[in-house]
């Protein structure tokens, strides 16, 4: 009933069997405890990087440990251990339960739960290519970027892969295993022309093996894309400053949704009443026709999971439906305290971190407008197609995201490229100003990492081309 890989990597080396797990649950949880879990994790990760045309460094890391969390009411006790042997686990359990003066039970039957989905193949990505093939892949990217334009002076690229074996044993004795592959390829280039230097970057990844990058010339396409962006930036003029109409391209610009509404709809902030969206279910927070979901069930996506880090199946959760706020993203603790059900959004960076409500893949469904028609409808504005990161103050609702490739729209035509600029807005009302939604919904290429309270987790975003009537663009050129 326990997954073989989990048994081999987590239990056998520590001499743990079902009777030990049963005793661990019985000792850790008991009367007066509302929940919690023993989270076992084995992760191996590697990274290869190329610079100056040679693959000069690489690293390999192994992490193994268990985190024990005991929840009572609104209180959480937590301890973790790098040692998976029973005495260390019992010590951590004792520490975690120190918040609760609760009874213990002798043993709780452990029942295996099998994830309903298999969104990714559990094979280890690290073994999906030989070492020489990994090096050759990076060299191909380097050669492609350098061949793309003579103005390329520096190419830096990296290949990273990991596999995590996760086993969640919850307070009810339910045991769930998930084996999670993740890969990523990144390219950054520097171009120079007449003493001016600019950079461009590209990349992608997801929950599969490295061979993905070899298919359809994917790796080479990233290289050409990074060079294209850098060359566009060489021509960029100062960005405008002030409030204007903004057209956002499809895909990664969906970081808008992640910042503007995603974080504000996480269950913890809403239970505590610290989110600008708290208490607003049923209210209009976006224009008609706008539907936004958080969906952890997309096959192979960077933000997808068969089960979340509490062992619950991920879901497609409707956050906004036709402009009306419908729901929040929940983990078990916040769902219980809010009188609702978990949505499978309980995530944690590792065994050494506490789970909390986090996004998976957050995106807006497509509309009817032709992207060309959207651009053509704007007399004077900004067309932004690539972004760096963003950030939000969930209490005031103010959020930013930073364009790394943007153009002026003049008389319905995309004209000159402008330098990167930060866009700022107010989460609860920015989507009410969306006046056109494109028919070109696209997900990002698989590069996003979301940070919350110091924990990073892989996520995805997506959206169609959007027209927003009035956002503040933070360039240097005041009109």
């Amino acid at each position: 009933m326990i997954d073989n890989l989990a048994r081999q990597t987590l239990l056998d080396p520590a001499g743990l069997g079902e009777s030990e797990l049963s005793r661990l649950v019985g000792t850790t949880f008991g009367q007066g405890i509302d929940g919690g879990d023993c989270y076992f994790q084995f992760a191996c990760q590697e990274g290869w990087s190329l610079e100056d045309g040679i693959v000069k460094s690489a690293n390999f890391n192994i992490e193994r440990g268990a985190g024990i969390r005991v929840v009572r009411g609104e209180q959480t006790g937590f301890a973790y251990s790098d040692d998976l042997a029973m005495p260390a686990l019992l010590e951590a359990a004792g520490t975690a339960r120190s918040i609760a003066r609760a009874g213990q039970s002798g043993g709780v039957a452990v029942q295996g739960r099998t994830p309903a989905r298999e969104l990714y193949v559990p094979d280890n990505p690290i073994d999906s290519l030989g070492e020489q093939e990994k090096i050759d892949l990076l060299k191909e990217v380097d050669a492609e970027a350098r061949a793309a334009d003579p103005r390329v002076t520096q190419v830096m690229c990296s290949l990273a892969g990991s596999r995590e074996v996760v086993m969640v044993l919850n307070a009810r004795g339910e045991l769930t295993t998930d084996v999670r592959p993740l890969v990523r390829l990144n390219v950054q280039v520097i171009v120079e022309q007449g003493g001016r230097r600019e950079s461009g970057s590209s990349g992608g990844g997801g929950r599969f093996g490295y061979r993905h990058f070899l298919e359809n010339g994917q790796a080479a396409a990233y290289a050409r894309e990074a060079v294209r962006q850098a060359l566009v930036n060489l021509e960029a003029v100062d960005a405008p400053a002030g409030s204007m109409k903004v057209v956002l391209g499809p895909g990664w610009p969906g970081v808008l949704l992640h910042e503007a509404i995603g974080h504000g709809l996480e269950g913890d902030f809403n239970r505590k009443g610290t989110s600008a969206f708290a208490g607003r279910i049923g209210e209009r927070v976006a224009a008609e026709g706008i539907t936004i979901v958080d969906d952890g069930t997309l096959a192979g996506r960077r933000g997808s999971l068969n089960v979340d880090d509490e062992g619950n199946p991920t879901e497609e959760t409707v956050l906004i439906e036709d402009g009306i706020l419908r729901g929040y993203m929940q983990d078990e603790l916040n769902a219980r305290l809010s009188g609702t059900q978990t949505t499978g959004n309980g995530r944690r960076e590792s065994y050494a971190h506490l789970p909390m409500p986090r996004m998976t893949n957050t995106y807006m469904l497509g509309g009817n407008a032709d992207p060309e028609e959207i651009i053509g409808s704007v007399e004077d504005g900004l067309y932004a197609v690539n972004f760096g990161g963003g950030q939000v103050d969930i209490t005031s609702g103010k959020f930013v995201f930073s364009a790394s490739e943007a153009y002026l729209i003049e008389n319905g035509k995309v004209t000159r490229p402008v330098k990167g600029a930060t866009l700022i807005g107010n989460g609860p009302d920015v989507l009410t100003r969306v006046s056109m939604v494109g028919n070109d919904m696209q997900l990002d290429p698989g590069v996003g990492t979301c940070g919350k309270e110091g924990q990073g987790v892989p996520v995805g975003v997506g959206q169609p081309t959007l027209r927003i009537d009035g956002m503040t663009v933070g360039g240097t050129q005041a009109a």
Partner: protein
Amino acid sequence: MSQRPAVETPEAAAQALSHSPESLRARVQQALEEAKKQGATDAQVVVSHSVGLDLGVRKGEIETLEHERDQNLSLIAHFGQSKGAASTTDFSEQALLDTVEAACRIARYTEPDPYAGMPSIAFKAVDWQDLDLDHPWELSIAQATELAQRTEQAGFDAESRIENSEGASVNTRRAMAFLGDTQGFMGGYRSTRHSLSCALVARGDDGMQRDYAYSVSRRAADLGIPEDIGREAAERTVRRLGGEKLSTRSCPVLFAPEMARTLIGSFTRAISGPAQFRESSFLLNALDERIFPEWMRIEERPLTPRGLGSAPFDGEGVQTRNRPLVEQGVLRSYTLDSYAARRLGRETTGNAGGARNVTVRPGTLDAPGMLREMGTGLLVTELIGQGVNPVTGDYSRGAAGFWVENGEIVHPVEEITIAGNLKDMFRAIVATGSDVDYRGNIRTGSILIESMTVAGE
């Protein structure tokens, strides 16, 4: 009267490390020997271990109690000019062998790099100073709870418009690390870091605002008084209520000390070895050039006793030194480890692991004096987003703060951006304040910049 929270004993039971210095040193030695055995020409090993306690209180009740215990072994193996790196959190005999094996295997595939290698023995630290970094805090759960409760309660008591809280938390952490290499360097030390923080939420007519206050130090006795931290958090939160946008304009911008730190952070990244040899710096090849006004001086002070960024030697065992980075506005040194030094044809500056305690020489004006110096302009107390291009220095970030006229705060502002280019901004610094914020690895007072573009309505 409030009492300072500190209770100290030399070896606090609550912060007992589960490994002795001898056992960490032995692990370093063993990994080095194993690397040699597997054919490495040289190797470097770091073994670290830490324990900590993090307690959070919200609305008077314990919300989270986290016990932290971390350990890590990391190794770099050199095979001639090729190298590989590996790390593990598993301290078993087998994991150590596997980790060495992984680093050596990688080194057989990576390509020779003419600049690879270890720092020359001549640069290694020999008799390093005790920088007084280890001050364990014997803190019971009950004491930690009380400190956090007092902090948060003071915030609620200070301002009636504080209606909610993200909580107050106490964190204490003690770490020990040993570094060794096959050239015979072996060094390690213990250090502590304690903090007390509070984040509150206030409601006004047009929405909510959140802000926070914190104190952090190597020694519990140096932490702020809980009541002061709670009150400061409340004041900072409430003063943001009723924020307005500004119309788009150009005006002087005063960065409050904790925001001024981010400008100096961009400077230290730009003069780091990798930024220089990757041509990814807006201060590329700027050595000996004037990049700040003539009156400015910036130093690196890694040897400051109890400093939050202090270290007696760097991540390669190289002796660290207090030294100027900028004199009379002129860039005097990059921050280099031995690899970057070889790449750039220079000597290591003891900066493996970064620049430490970067200190901007304080000016003479205090915070109100800096406001008067600005006269009319924008005081920035919060920045959000990552809108800094390290290659070009183009700068555009979300901001919140206060509109100032004739040296007096007029009203809070929010939902605006400030933009410019860091090279121009650095040259346009009008004054730095005496209001130095020591709570981090970068220490600076507020920084006044002559003019930036503010985008709003």
